[in-house]
């Protein structure tokens, strides 16, 4: 009778416990075998010819052959050491043999990057030999192809340059496929547009460009000129222009005055003496002062009784009468208020029409104000300078034409405006450029000094003068 072994319950909580109580030898054996197979090749897949040899000779022959081969080897053996060395040259050196992969396991990284071996780059020597061979005419074809390629590249370059000079290209004539990012090789008559679009390279596929900012689209590049800046303006228009300039200037002055008042004007000026006095006063706080009889506290007011600086608070209770009075007062107040409200209700009935009119009036006024505000905001939005940078965009200033400059003829026109700056600021005002201040590079301050022996002092000059005078 076989005794059924009672199953033993053991914990296989962690790895160690699992290892202890589990028999995994079969798995390990299997894996071992597999590895061996990978290394040496599988027995089942190998052909029989590789595994077995058909023995055609007897044991005797074998022995004889052994002896024979030994002798024959000796015969074949190269005599000279030179030859032996040469034979060994083709073999891999022993020291490198270990680097050759012997494993049959395939490379897990199927697409390993190819690294050029050391000798593949042309060296100075190989370059020379190559050149020699080229001169001999060994690579005729190669040279020809290279020449051709060079010519194509040059032609391409020249064409691009000529376009830049002659603009010999009808840009808007037909739909140029190149502009859409379609490769040049595909731009042919026989390729349908669908195929073209299909073949647009993903890196060149056009992304829709977001629309430009509103300020650029809506604001005109060249503002309409004020009629007063004519070289021979009518009196009225010129006066209008001057008025504008004056207003602008006044605004600026006002602003400047405001800034002055708010900043510098806030602080009073102090003379050095006053400052000194102040300083002295501040510094001597808490120090024992010299006795001053005028400052002595007079004794006549005090009656020797102790008085605290802050006497304690007394909880003085109100009596019944006071409380009643207070209550009554409150009630009376409330009653009067109620009465007034009731009265107002009745009187309001008679004032209905007036109320209505006031309400409608305020409503209309509010509506007007609203429209005014909206229009004002719209105008401001339309002309607001874009804030694209920490620097502020320069505001447009009215052009000032000095009445004395106006001569009325074309010969003697004088202009004070800088058109380039005008353009630059216009671009900034339209939001095409962020406002900027050109940062000037600071010139390095060089210290200048005399070389020790080359210093010329006044003494030297004097000495020189006296000497030259003495010579005379």
């Amino acid at each position, binding site marked *: 009778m076989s005794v059924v072994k009672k199953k033993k319950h053991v914990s296989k909580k962690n790895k160690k416990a699992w290892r202890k109580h589990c028999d995994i030898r079969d798995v390990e054996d299997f894996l071992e075998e597999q590895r061996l197979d990978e290394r040496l090749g599988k027995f089942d897949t190998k052909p029989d010819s590789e595994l077995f040899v058909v023995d055609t000779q007897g044991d005797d022959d074998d022995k004889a052959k052994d002896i024979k081969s030994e002798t024959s080897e000796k015969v074949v053996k190269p005599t000279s050491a030179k030859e032996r060395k040469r034979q060994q040259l083709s073999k891999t050196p022993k020291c490198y043999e270990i680097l050759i992969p012997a494993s049959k396991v395939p490379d897990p990284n199927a697409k390993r990057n190819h690294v050029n071996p050391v000798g593949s780059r042309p060296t100075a020597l190989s370059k020379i030999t190559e050149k020699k061979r080229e001169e001999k005419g060994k690579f005729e074809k190669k040279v020809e192809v290279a020449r051709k390629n060079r010519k194509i590249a040059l032609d391409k370059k020249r064409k691009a340059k000529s376009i830049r000079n002659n603009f010999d290209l009808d840009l808007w004539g037909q739909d140029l496929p190149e502009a859409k990012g379609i490769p040049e090789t595909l731009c042919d008559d026989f390729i349908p547009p669908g195929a073209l679009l299909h073949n647009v390279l993903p890196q060149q596929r056009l992304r829709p460009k977001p629309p430009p900012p509103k300020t650029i689209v809506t604001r005109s590049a*060249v503002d309409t000129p004020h009629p007063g800046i004519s070289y021979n303006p009518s009196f009225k228009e010129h006066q209008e222009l001057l008025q504008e300039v004056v207003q602008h200037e006044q605004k600026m002055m006002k602003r400047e005055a405001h800034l002055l008042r708010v900043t510098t004007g806030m602080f009073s000026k102090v003379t050095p003496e006053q400052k000194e006095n102040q300083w002295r006063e501040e510094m001597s706080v808490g120090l024992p002062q010299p006795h001053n009889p005028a400052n002595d506290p007079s004794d006549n007011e005090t009656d020797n009784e102790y008085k605290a600086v802050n006497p304690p608070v007394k909880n003085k209770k109100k009596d019944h009468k006071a409380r009643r009075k207070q209550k009554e007062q409150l009630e009376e107040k409330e009653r009067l208020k109620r009465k007034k409200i009731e009265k107002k209700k009745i009187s309001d009935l008679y004032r209905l029409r007036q109320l209505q009119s006031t309400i409608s009036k305020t409503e209309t006024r509010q509506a007007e104000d609203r429209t005014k505000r909206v229009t004002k905001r719209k105008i401001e939005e339309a002309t607001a300078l874009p804030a694209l940078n920490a620097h502020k965009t320069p505001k447009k200033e009215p052009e000032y034409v000095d009445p004395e400059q106006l001569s009325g003829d074309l010969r003697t026109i004088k202009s004070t405006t800088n058109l380039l700056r005008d353009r630059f600021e216009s671009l900034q005002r339209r939001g095409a450029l962020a406002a900027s201040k050109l940062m000037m590079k600071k010139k390095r301050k060089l210290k200048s000094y005399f070389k020790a022996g080359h210093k010329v002092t006044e003494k030297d000059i004097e000495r020189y003068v006296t000497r030259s005078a003495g010579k005379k």
Partner: protein
Amino acid sequence: MVSKKKKKYSSGEGAQFMTRKAALKKLQLTLKDFRRICILKGIYPREPRNRKRAQKGAGGIKTLYHTKDIKFLLHEPILWKLRELKTYQQKIRKARAMREYRQMRRYLRDYPDINIDHIVKERYPTFVDALRDLDDCLTLCFLFSTFPSLKRVPRDQSMLCRRLTVEFMHAVIAAKALRKVFVSVKGYYYQVEIEGQTITWIVPHHFSFQPQSKDEVDFKIMSTFVEFYTMMLGFVNFKLYHSLNLVYPPKLTAAFSADSDKDLVDEQQYVSERIAAMNIPVVRITGANEVEELPEIDIFNTEDEDPQKLEEAKEEAEKVKKLKTMFKGLKFYINREVPREPLVFIIRCFGGEVSWDKDHFVGATFDESDESIAYQIVDRPSMEKQYLSRYYIQPQWVFDSVNARTLLPINKYLMGAVLPPHLSPFTDKIRDQVYKPPEERELLDPNLKPLNDDEGSDTDVEEASDEDAEEKEEDSDGDPDEALAKQYQQEVEDESSTEDEDDIDPEKKKIAKEKKKAMAVTTGVPHKEHPYQKEIEDKQAFRLREKLVRKKHRNLYKSMKAGQEKRKKEIWLLRKKRRLLDEKAKEEKKAEKRKQRNQALEAASA
């Protein structure tokens, strides 16, 4: 499961924008290159709605770009070119440092160009788009054409600008596209109309080059703008020349070819070459005729089209047509002291022929002694030798004539005369609704009757009649159908009255009459159109259309109308005042005269 917490600013406005620094990092460009590519591709910094959010909580004001814009830039093939250029420049620098000058020169010779024609096409998909954006381009190109070679501006740029601007002016001359000129202290404002697009630009006065101070303008940026604009202007010129059947590039004088830029060091000489170039007609393509004149305006009968507006448009077209051939067949001679460039351009634009002193400047086509010269343009108070066969006028006459669109009477512009003011043609419409004294009106519109005493009253009468008309129209329900019906009834009555003479059997007659009526054929009455009635109808229709104004725009429309009325009233009031004043002055004058006469009589009798 708790979903992964969303990172702040990974969506919404925070993700929409990108600081310039981030953009540089993303595009792997230097600031210099980034600025350049932004200008070329037309990518501009943006102003966010909520800056705090757009800057991902950072304070201050940073330059922000749309993330989409930057992603769009990422696909630009020029980006690679710019990166290549950077290494190329490094090579040059290295060669210079190693003192391999031969190598360096070779690098400089083969310096790669960046082709940006595809960008022009991308930014302006149609020709009209390009024309619309030509204002800035022309102003900058004309400005740069006056510059000598500067430090931060490529050497050939101002040369290219010169060539392209002259070419463009030639195209304008050939197309006769110039519409308005204004001579300001800043420079000459020109306005042309090409393919229905008005283009305005400024040409600076020709002074010698004024040195530009460094801290005002970033030359590098401006020159990048000019780089793009020259490309654009070149292609626009090409297209313009081809649409005008002209050969492009035109053969201008030798001064404009790129290889001879060293020969013209003298600024004066360059200017005269430029003007001479403008005086030569451009070669037409063989076998091509003049561009056909545009046909008259087609009238599309749309319901909402205002007949008044249509009439205005027609008038405008007629005026423009006249303007185009204003100077045709006239010969102008420009004296030596007059700035020639604007005058040659303008006169040639309207078909005139120009010449100047042969000894001083190149390119003169005829001599001063030519008797067929119609006008000599002079800017000096007097001349010793004068020809009787021509008028001696001041240059302002040409500008004012162009703006008035007719040849103005020359009496105010003769040599030595005090010129009338040169008014701006760039005035907005609202300025028309301002009171102008009769003198000014005469100045603006030469067709207006010369200043008369009864002129004021005339207009008044007109206005009064207008008012009357308005009143009348309310009374009568002007209906042409009703009038027709009335007429018909009358005729029928007339007929019946003639028949009544027979006076036989009223019963039968009645039946017969009815029968007759049923099959009667009356003679047709031509429908007369009452001009007055039509006006009333138009007004009614206008009022109906006014009612169709959307509620959204109604208030705006109302306020606009009210403003118009107000301004009209003001004008009327001022005119009336003026009229009364004039009348009073006239009366006084008369009284004075009478008094004088009386005094004289008395003196004679005494």
